[in-house]
């Protein structure tokens, strides 16, 4: 399989970094099409930088970034993003928030006005998939944090992106809501065949959701370990209590602990 996201020997220093220490250094990462990849690491290891590099929001000082076979020289336009903060616009209803990407991305941008009903139906379908059926008319601030995060996932997916970037999307939620959303995410991945890069602190989350897990070192970040996750799909939450799962989480924890010590 050809890699869909291919970062080769990438070093990146932010222009505003005062100490001049690179955020990531000699980082190499290959993610296949349709794969669910998770990136874990100690805080401040450059995980978010990696996301920005892969979506063309930042360009590497050294090395190359290819996405979908093309070198990234501008924002990639085929990505959807969701963050820890749901960033819904409070003056739009949830449905209009979800439709926002369509007002930006071609070809939807040009045909949104005339085909509104079709797009609204699609948004309603997504809302149903994440368990928010019939809630589209509410304003985001009338929804709970978990519901806003579900809506934020819908917004990230409405334009059928080929690449979905998730930056600790469940970090601010309570553990029950988080596990519920893991299952939502698992089902969305199964249904949409989208390539997903999940950046997270939560090792159980990575182990439950991902096909492959990359461990990053402390800043300057690079990949120190790569681990296939062999649990068959569809996965049930029950597997998180199996000894194999615990062993995997324990192993990952070892890598992170080592990365923290090395820093």
């Amino acid at each position, binding site marked *: 399989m050809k890699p869909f996201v291919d970062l080769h020997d990438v070093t990146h220093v932010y222009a505003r970094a005062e100490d001049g220490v690179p955020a990531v250094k000699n980082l190499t990462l290959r993610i296949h099409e349709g794969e669910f990849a998770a990136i874990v690491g100690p805080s401040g290891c450059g995980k978010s930088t990696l996301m920005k590099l892969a979506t063309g*929001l930042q360009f590497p000082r050294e090395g190359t970034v290819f996405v979908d076979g093309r070198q990234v020289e501008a924002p990639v336009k085929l990505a959807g993003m969701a963050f820890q903060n749901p960033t819904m616009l409070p*003056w739009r209803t949830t449905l209009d928030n979800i439709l926002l990407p369509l007002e930006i991305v071609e070809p939807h941008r040009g045909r949104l006005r005339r085909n509104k009903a079709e797009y609204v139906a699609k948004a309603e379908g997504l809302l149903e998939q994440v368990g928010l059926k019939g809630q589209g008319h509410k304003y985001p*601030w009338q929804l709970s944090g978990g519901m806003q995060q579900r809506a934020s996932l819908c917004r990230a997916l409405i334009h059928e992106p080929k690449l979905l970037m998730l930056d600790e999307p469940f970090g601010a939620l309570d553990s029950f809501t988080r596990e519920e959303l893991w299952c939502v995410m698992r089902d969305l991945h199964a249904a949409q065949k989208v390539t997903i890069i999940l950046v997270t602190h939560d090792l159980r989350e990575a182990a439950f959701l991902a096909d492959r897990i990359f461990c990053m070192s402390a800043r300057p970040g690079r990949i120190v370990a790569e681990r296939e996750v062999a649990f068959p799909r569809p996965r049930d939450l029950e597997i998180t209590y199996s000894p194999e799962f615990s062993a995997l989480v324990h192993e990952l924890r070892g890598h992170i602990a080592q990365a923290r010590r090395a820093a």
Partner: protein
Amino acid sequence: MRTKNQLALAPWIFTIGFFVLWEVACRALGISSFILPAPSTILLAVWEYRIQLGYHALHTLWMTVAGFGLAVAFGLLLGMVLGSSRLINAGSYPLLVGFNSIPKVAVVPILVFWFGVGWVPPVLTAFLISFFPIVVNVATGIATVEPEMEDVLRALGASKRDIVFKVGVPRAMPYFFGSLKVAITLAYVGSVIGEQNASNVGIGNLLTRASAAFEVPLVWAALVVLAVLGVVMYAITAYAERSMTGWAQRSQMAA
């Protein structure tokens, strides 16, 4: 429910109480109406000069609204430019602050050199004095768009323009409407200053003439008319704010 009624009544009770106290103080202490006329004297003067006051008040209102309208249009435009470009923002800020620091009454003579005495100096004074808060607030609203939101849109290929119009401008609306309440009051001050120094009509001009002729009750009557007009204009902008940006006023603090 009781506190709600009390809250609704409180402004009336306080206002009426204030004038009653004033009246009582004037009568009890026998204050000369040349120093401080009693409210009843002022009210009589308002009635006596009603036609003159009405004519001049309408003129002042018109000057204020015209200057305010210019300030809104210009303020929105400049605010959008400053909010979306850090370079222009940083570069022009000292100029803007410096300009805003000049007392506008000092600018009126220059306006008179340029445009002569008439309707232009009051309108321009109102405009010059009131656009600054609008610019600053709109620029702040646009410049403080959450970086995550910007990333979401930029990763979709959104241009700077898209981000400013889809997120920045709507986001700046509560700031904008908040600044209108400040701006309308300032515009009013501006138009009256302009009229006092460079116009033959308007409440400002009436004030200048009445005080030169020591017509004390007329001066006070003009002040009362000014106050009432000011409250009305403020109330209209406050109402516009509430009806336009309800989404931003959902906190308990605003209730």
